[in-house]
């Protein structure tokens, strides 16, 4: 076959270019370790996500010192959890699945981007070096409200990050002279133990207790308040643990109504 010299040169150049591209991509995979979303996860029944260990409660979980896993569910037209909160300097593995149609989980302006196909679980491991707030969009058409499907990803500074959860159970109404109890549950979702102080402010009083909560554990602190000191009336209280706060009102009455005792 008669091929012009210039054309031969062009042809060789073209092949070099093509091989060059393939080498570049291969370097990205092998050298830089950019793995593709693949078939490493078992399939899952979209209708049974509520019974699934990982996806019944979409959340972020700490699995190593700086390692986290995020279980995300996409559905028309929202993401759970929202926002996803992780610390800077961590490595986060996202597991994303869909409850209904095909969506995507795409963090705007980054290379965190995957299709979310019902029946499949997409896995991506991402390193977050710096703190920042990102928007998450669904970039696959999923129905008439597709454009409203959005979420957020918060990468918070390491020292500000925790997975502490606070819940308080307190008496609403007590008789003067009785003791009121305020029970504070502090859950530490991190792996490391948490040393902190639980404080209660009520009326003019301030009570504090130092606690150490092991990783993954919940510690209960019970405060008892003598209502005689408070006197009759409404008293606002506030429980504080680190940056978390819960508050309510305790009513001290002269005499409780009958039916309360019967229960």
């Amino acid at each position, binding site marked *: 076959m008669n091929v012009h010299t210039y054309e031969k040169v062009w042809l060789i150049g073209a092949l070099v270019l093509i091989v060059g591209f393939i080498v570049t991509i291969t370097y990205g995979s092998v050298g830089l370790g950019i793995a*593709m979303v693949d078939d490493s996860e078992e399939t899952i029944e979209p209708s049974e996500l509520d019974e699934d260990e990982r996806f019944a409660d979409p959340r972020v979980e700490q699995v190593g010192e700086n390692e986290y896993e995020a279980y995300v569910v996409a559905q028309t037209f929202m993401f759970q959890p929202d926002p996803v909160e992780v610390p800077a300097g961590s490595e986060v593995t996202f597991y994303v699945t869909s409850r209904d149609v095909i969506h995507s989980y795409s963090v705007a302006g980054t290379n965190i981007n995957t299709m979310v196909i019902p029946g499949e679980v997409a896995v991506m491991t991402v390193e977050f070096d710096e703190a920042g707030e990102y928007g998450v969009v669904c970039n696959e058409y999923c129905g008439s409200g597709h454009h409203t499907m959005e979420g957020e990803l918060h990468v918070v500074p390491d020292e500000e990050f925790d997975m502490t959860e606070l819940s308080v159970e307190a008496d609403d109404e007590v008789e003067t002279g009785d003791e009121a109890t305020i029970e504070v549950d502090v859950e530490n979702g991190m792996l490391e133990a948490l040393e902190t102080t639980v404080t209660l402010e009520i009326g003019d009083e301030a009570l504090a207790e130092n606690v150490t909560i092991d990783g993954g554990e919940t510690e209960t602190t019970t405060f008892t308040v003598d209502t005689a000191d408070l006197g009759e009336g409404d008293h606002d209280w506030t429980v504080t643990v680190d940056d978390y706060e819960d508050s309510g009102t305790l009513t001290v009455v002269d005499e409780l109504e009958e039916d309360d005792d019967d229960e």
Partner: protein
Amino acid sequence: MSNAYIDDFPAEAKVVRTAFYSSFLALALGGVFGVIQTLHRTGYYRFIDSADYYTVLTAHGVFLVISFTIFFLVGVFTWAITTSLDRGVEDLRFTWGWYGLMAIGITLSGVAILAGFTDATDISASVLFTFYAPLQAHPMFYLGLVLFVVGTWLAGVDWFRSWWAWKAENPDERIPLPTFMVLTTMLMWYIATLGVAAAILVFLLPWSLGLVESVNPLLTRTLFWFFGHPVVYFWLMPAYMMWYIMLPKVSGGKLFSDPLARVVFVLFLILSVPTGIHHQYLDPGIAEGFKFIAMTNTMFLLLPSLLTAFTVVASMEHGARQRGGEGYFGWLKALPWRDPVFTGMALAGLMFAAAGFSGMINAGMNINYLVHNTFWVVGHFHLTVGTAVALTFMAVTYWFLPQITGKALWSRSVALGQVVLWFVGMTFMSNAMHRAGLLGVPRRTAEPQYDGFEFEAAVGTMGELQAQIALGGILLTLSLVLFFANVVGTALNGRSDDLPANEYAGTLSGPEDAPLVLDNLKLWTAIAVVLVVFAYTFPLLSIIDRGGLFGPDINPFPVSLETVHLLAFALESHVTGALESVAWLGVNR
């Protein structure tokens, strides 16, 4: 009496004319939906509900990339076969038969889509051009697509019949180049459409009729892309044909090399299909190895396009030098820039070069994370199908119209303005789309603005990008208006006796230089099939094994996952090796 196509083939000219008018009707509808979309998305003018945006988007996609392109293709291919074999179609009723089937098919699909605008019926098909399950359209939508595709299959049969009849009379002759291009393109199309036919006939149509309860979304999606990538070459091949056989002629010269043109079309036949998984780089449920194979195949698919770039530019230079052009770049001035047919095609080719670069980014497996499903991709295919293909089609229309109507073109200056306006409009729109995509702005959304965050542009602003997109959209719409003015104006003209002859470009290096094996269509088809089997058998088996034929809880395929993986990795190296040798085989002859 002149020597125009309509003089030699009056009956065929009517077929080509009807196909072109069908194509232009689709272009008009698609264009109207396009400008509605542009103005809605950018927020400049929103008169439809955002929920209806997706119906508009479906109509824009289906009318433009299915009906506009493919009706034009069947017109060009019918012209190419009859002209280059110098014989009319074998059976005119059969020809009108496939045209009718295509027309009925697209009407059914079109009605199903447009019915989405009204609540008067339950019919709708706002599932976009990709119709990914579990999104479900009315059965009429799927049925229409099937009929349309079957129509194209029969059109291919028609062209093969012409060739067989011609071959019987001319046993020792080489296949004329335009016919060769038609036949290789159709062979590619037959292989490619098996995917969409299986997706619709086995899964989506029975599912939409309620005959089966569920489908495996990853499976139907993979079958779609089995078809969805080669379909872009189906749009592109008629444009390539025009660059090879028309552009050299209007430049004033000859095609640089007939043999290399054949090599290019053979490469498209064998490499177009085993690449579809590159649309699924970010799909869970497909192993990385399969994605890697699709990536290497895709990169080798750059070869025929790079070869085309050389041949087209070389042919243009030859033409320019015949017209007295001189110097390293001075010959560019000698090209017929006042001719809309030339200028339109040259600008389309230029845009295609730009599209090639954004396409290489898309094809880069791990780079794809950054751009997948963003507005970047929309920018990319508005350069490929939206300019390389559409602008070439519009430019050659100015040559074809007199040939198939027997009437002089209404206005050459309006035509020239039209092609330039398209180029300018698309430069604004596509450039801004690419840039917006890099910020993470998604494609396929009615309102790319969110409550919780804003897109941040490193250079310029989102507002500026939106303005460029809207401006581009308006210029493109104006360009379309000029185009239709010329089509209608020409149709209203009287018959002319002074029309150019129905000719295409000669060659500098003719078919006598091309090895005979290039015309061995059976061999190339066999290689194409083998490559498809290599690239797709294991991904498909694996998807079925994982998720079941009809959905995740059914597991009817008795192939264990481990076996599939083992075999896939063993094959991976073979396939890559085979591809390289095939690519070399093609060019070394």
